[in-house]
């Protein structure tokens, strides 16, 4: 953690809300991306984002600098996301979108690819991700979509590195099998 971030945390702990908002600006793109990946729709993702940072604000005085702040925020975000899912039970698979020409969330879009195949593939990926257990999906998202290190994932999820590797292998194997059926693997 660099000195500027550390100073911001100390100021936020002392009640300086502007410093808190600066911390938000540093990490919130990653957190919003993560919540979108878990929730798969922007309404739920935003609710989780809001709830996460309100919790960060309420608990920042308890942060003891024993870990990196981003792993601490990630942990809050993941717990919030799954509690939210449990409470609302409405986190849903992304349905193929109607062609409106623009996408407000800037989903990766390749105009060269065949639109039908693309939608089918998105459905297949989402279905495959939903077949994974909660832990397998989380570990997969953190490793391959958020590009975190295994050590950090273990820290965020409070698991041993061995357990993280086990979940990761199971997730990758299931995805390989699922996507092979669609001839994309």
């Amino acid at each position, binding site marked *: 953690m660099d000195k500027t971030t550390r100073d911001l945390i100390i100021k936020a702990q002392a*009640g300086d*809300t502007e410093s*808190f*908002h600066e911390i*938000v*600006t540093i990490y*919130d*793109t990653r957190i*919003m*991306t993560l919540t*979108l*990946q878990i929730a798969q729709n*922007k309404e739920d*993702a*935003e609710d989780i*984002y*809001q709830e996460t*940072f*309100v919790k960060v*604000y*309420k608990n920042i005085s308890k942060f003891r600098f024993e870990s990196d702040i981003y792993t601490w925020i990630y942990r809050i975000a993941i717990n919030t996301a799954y509690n939210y899912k449990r409470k609302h039970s409405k986190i849903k698979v992304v349905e193929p979108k109607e062609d*409106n*020409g*623009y996408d*407000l*969330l*800037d*989903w*990766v879009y390749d105009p060269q690819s065949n639109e039908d195949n*693309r939608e089918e*593939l*998105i459905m297949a*990926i989402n279905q*495959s*991700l939903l077949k994974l257990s909660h832990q397998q999906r989380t570990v*997969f998202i953190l*490793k*391959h*979509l958020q590009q975190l290190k*295994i050590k950090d994932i273990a820290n965020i999820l409070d698991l041993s590195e061995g357990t993280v*590797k086990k979940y*990761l*292998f199971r997730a*990758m*194997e299931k*995805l*390989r099998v*699922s*996507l*092979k059926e669609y001839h*994309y*693997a």
Partner: protein
Amino acid sequence: MPNKISEQQKKQAALYICNALSITAKRKIEQELKTNSELQNYVNELKSAIETTRSFSTIAPSEEFLQGSRNLLRGKIQILGTKKNSVSVLSNIIDKIKSSVILLAKKQQPVWAVATYIIIGLIVGRLLLSPGGDKPIDISGQEYVDMNKLIQSGVLSDLQIDQSTLSPSSIKLVSHTDNRFNVSGNINDKNIRKILYYLLLNDDNIDNRFQAGKQIKRITPDSVSRMVLISSVLSETDQRVRLQSMETLSRYQSSPDLINACKRILLDDHNFTMRLESLNILGKNMSSDLIPLLEVVRKMDDNPSVRDKANELLVELQKPVSIENNEVTQ
């Protein structure tokens, strides 16, 4: 004949892709990969599955979506900050009272003495929590007013704007439960502003929020009032109050925060008047990066007036620049 691969080899291959093997294990699997075609296929399939999933699941939130969320969060934190301060001071007072009561109870005082202590405690508490003596308090013009103390005293919870004494530049705020508290002063006084901001964002009574918003309309715009109004349009539940804040904002100079708030309202607000008003504000700050958003609104908004307005702005944006206007006078 293709080589068979064991479960252990599969695990090692997965960890190899994740770059999570020790140097020795990595060398070993790389050696095996040179000769084992089945293992090679397995690794390729894993890599492909990951790449495909990654390329279709990497969602980057747009800057305007993120900015809207930040504004909403700002409003929530502001409210929380106020409550947090009030609660912490109050809980300190309660803790002190608790410890005093425990102390008294331990000494086994007679009932009449305990009752007297409680009455004295209540009077002292009342004095501590009241903002001042018996004379009316005028906080306008004071260098610093502790808003937290005012909030804790409770006077802000039933504060109202005295309509009978309103003039173009002054205002009077009266408390119904504490008649000693009646603040009067210039509408642009910073303390009066602070109270109005508090009322607009925190008062439980809708009419009070509406009245506070009405007065904020009269003050000289600055960056703080803009932020307060943006918080109001993004977090207010009452349509009347929200609309009033939006109308006030339409008189403000453009800023990135305001533009982002308008974009957010245009996409998310259920009230079509709010969406129309946000289009009016955006219309004063036209730039080509609005085109995708306007296209979406033109095609997808539920309300025909909003669609028409979006279309009108789009036409204006896409109008070719007149050559005559660009000609340099000879």
